């Protein structure tokens, strides 16, 4: 963890006051008009890219904000960028105005004072966000404190082709049994890919006795013992993975064509609606369905954050606020568009606004909120960082 130490060392006493002040929304709107916002967001999913392009059209129409999508292959790139800019003394107009972020990257940036804010809870649309029912005020156990604005809910679901794998699985142990009986038909994205790391956490949460220990930061004393069952599990699973674990899909969406071709029967996704969207886009066969485990699956919120040195913070806040609007949220939840879960509280919406959500057909492969069941909390980010590093050592270097 020299990296956190380094960041702490860099965190100069530049106490960031939110300026422009989000409480004075009219002033924010006036300043945002004409600003260009560079939104750094993962660019590997074409449906997400299309959605971001649509957001760009809408904020240009309504607020005169020009949105540019900088397509990342890894969100860590954007974090590095802001960090390098801070070192280079570029404090006023960095390359990045907004980042799609959560988890370890957020914790690292917040820790190093690289974020603008607090702003999220002053945004006008915060009033309709479901603060009680959804984990929008903590991000992987780290308090958000208004330094990032939520815009989508995600939850792990398992995607299976009912044509070749009719039954669902209730636990990770059942998954292991099934994989041993059906070698080569399951894989997960290669960590440190986000979804790949999530799979590792999902295994951990499901197989250990008391997942509550994961809510505390991992320490040298606890880590090895807690994680030991995970390595035992993976040692048993890996030989039965697709390509015997010698190669892994790069990302979650890269597994869709593999299911479509019949190479895989089972994969995982972090977006309950993604399978339906992919079916509509011909990327998955119509026989694909999703399921969750008996004890529930991990869920979290996706956020947008604004770097401390954005020159267009007003414009970025306008975009963040628009992302939380009923219009954008209903569109994001439409499985034909994106299929992301909403962060809004239906009870706080007007009847017309609610109607837009009610009118959505969730799609044949999407579970209803009730079927999605219990959402299990994300472990503290320190677990993910360590588990991912160790995974790379154990399975990612061909040894």
């Amino acid at each position, binding site marked *: 963890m*020299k*990296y956190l130490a*380094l960041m702490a*060392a*860099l965190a100069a006493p530049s106490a960031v006051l939110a300026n422009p002040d989000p409480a004075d929304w009219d002033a924010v709107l006036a300043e945002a008009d004409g600003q260009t916002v*560079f939104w*750094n967001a993962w*660019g*590997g*999913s*074409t449906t997400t*890219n*299309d959605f971001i*392009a649509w957001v760009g059209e809408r904020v240009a129409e309504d607020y005169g904000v020009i949105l*540019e999508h*900088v*397509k*990342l*292959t890894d969100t*860590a*790139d954007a974090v*590095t*960028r802001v960090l*390098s*800019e801070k*070192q*280079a003394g570029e404090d006023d107009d960095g*390359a990045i105005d907004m980042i799609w972020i959560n988890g370890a*990257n957020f914790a*690292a940036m917040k820790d190093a004072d690289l974020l603008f804010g607090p702003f999220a809870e002053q945004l006008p649309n915060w009033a309709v966000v479901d603060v009680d029912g959804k984990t929008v005020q903590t991000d992987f156990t780290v308090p958000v404190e208004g330094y990032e604005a939520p815009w989508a809910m995600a939850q792990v679901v398992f995607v299976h082709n009912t044509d*070749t794998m009719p039954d669902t699985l209730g636990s990770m142990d059942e998954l292991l049994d099934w994989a041993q009986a059906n070698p*080569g038909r399951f894989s997960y994205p*290669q960590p440190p890919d986000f979804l790949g790391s999530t799979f590792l956490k999902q295994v951990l949460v499901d197989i250990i006795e008391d997942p509550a220990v994961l809510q505390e930061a991992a320490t040298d004393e606890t880590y090895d013992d807690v994680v030991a069952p995970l390595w035992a599990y993976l040692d048993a699973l890996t030989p039965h993975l*697709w*390509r*015997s674990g*010698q*190669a*892994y899909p*790069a*990302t979650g*969406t*890269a*597994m*869709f*064509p593999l299911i*479509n*071709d*019949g*190479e895989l029967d089972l994969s995982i996704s972090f977006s309950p609606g993604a399978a339906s969207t992919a079916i509509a*886009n*011909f*990327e998955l*066969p119509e026989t694909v369905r999703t399921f969750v485990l008996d004890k529930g699956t991990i869920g979290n919120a996706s956020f947008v954050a604004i770097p401390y040195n954005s020159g267009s913070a007003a414009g970025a806040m306008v975009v963040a606020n628009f992302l939380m609007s009923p219009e954008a949220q209903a569109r994001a939840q439409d499985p034909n568009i994106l299929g992301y879960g909403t962060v809004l509280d239906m009870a706080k919406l007007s009847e017309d606004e609610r109607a837009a959500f009610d009118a959505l057909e969730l799609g044949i492969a999407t579970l209803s909120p009730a079927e999605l069941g219990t959402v299990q909390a994300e472990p503290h980010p320190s677990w993910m960082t360590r588990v991912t590093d160790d995974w790379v*050592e154990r*399975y*990612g*270097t*061909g*040894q």
Partner: protein
Amino acid sequence: MLGPVIAGLYGTVLPAFGHLPAAGLTGPTLDPFRSLFDWGGLGAAVRLSVTTGVLATGLSLLIVSFIVAGWSGTRSFRVLERLLSPLLSVPHAAAAFGLAFLIVPSGWLARMTSPWLTGWDRPPDVLIVQDPLGLAMVAGLVVKEVPFLLLMMIAAMGQAQPRRSLLVAQALGYGRVTGWLKTVFPRVYAQIRLPVYVVIGYSMSVVDVAVILGPSTPPTLSVQIVKWMSDPDLAMRLTGAAAALLQFALVVGVLVAWWLGERVVAALGRRWIASGRRGQTDTPGRVLGLWFGALSALSILLGLASLLVWSFAARWTFPNVLPDGFTLRSWDRHGPSAIATMGETFVIAGAAVGLALVLVLGCLEAEHRGGRQFGQRGLLLLYLPLLVPQTAFLPGLQTMLLSIGADMGQMPVVFAHLVFVLPYVFLSLGDPWRSWDARNATVAQALGASPWRVFWAVRLPMLTRPVLTALAVGVAVSVGQYLATLLIGGGRVSTLTTEAVALSSGGDRRAIGVYGLLQTLAALVPFTVALIVPTILWRNRRGLHD
């Protein structure tokens, strides 16, 4: 053009020894190397870089030699030449995507033979792309390097006067291939040595092809360098810099080994030549050469065809050879933004190639007027940016640009592209420019024309075709740049290549089809223009060229 390379290397050496003041770290220390050697995948990554680079270069050279030896001057050779030369401009990433679509277990080859031949109704679980030995990656490199080396060899043949040597050899009873190998090859190889070195350096440190076709557990050293360079943990940057130096040393080491290998082969070859054995390898050599040449051309063409089909595919299940339905939806979805990106790609390429052309023409004209020739040393200087692995100096250049606050936007990217475009434009234009008959200038000057008038009114029009070809080569090089755009552009500059490689991680084959095709088109269109424009310009003065 050495400036950026040296600056970049300097920007790599400092952090490799723990010196990165921007991060509050001062060296010198060997910690970065320690953490590099602690990485469990290092052995495999280094081995991969060396084997894929050497194997790809060796195979390509072998194939090209047998094609030229066995077939130059024949009709099949002209067909193959015409087939392979446009393929030179197909960007590496597009060729790699195409190849991947062909050879994966669910790819076109498996579909064409399933289930009637193979019995597969589901794709077999075999590791073809991303194999730990990097063989798929070698194949991807070979199909692209064969056209490059072939054209280089054809250009070199002009000066080697192969016909007479071959006639003598054949009169002495040597077969075609043996005779060529014994008499022509030594002279030709001396001329294409630098291009061969470029292929070695490139193949050992390529990133985009390795990301698409190469293994990931662990990846090649260059891919790992890029990963380290983009790690949020700044200490990893130091490790990355140390690895970049290692990469540089590896390339230098392999080049030295190759150079020594040349001596050994030359010594053995001389003995073989002197032995006077007439050889039995003629027919198999000829056949294999042609087969592999045709195979590499075909795999690119089929690969591009599969990109085309995917971009129009609706649902497409295994083992159907063609999609279950066709749709325009992928083009509707990705077409507009892809075409906008194409615009930016052309703006950058246009600026870089325009600058390169001005510099090259200025240089060649000065050489002409001053009466001095660019020597072997000058040629080496020109080749240096192509020989130094990109992963060794681009990250350093990025760090350096960042520290002076000049790393954003298109201009730095244009200059970074210029580093790679300039040598190719020079190499492509140098020979035709020099071989122009200077008596034309003498005549024009005798008629009272100034040197500049000679340049604009006589020389440039007469050399329209090579100038346009050089432009096309430059555009193709610029379009294909991945790392230079990605690192120097700081993510704000996207070209068709960076977009296509970014999409590769998402696995959406339809989107990859759209971007890969447009990427190929962007590189091919200038070549078509270079072919057509002179024909139109010269329709009533055919004698003007040659």
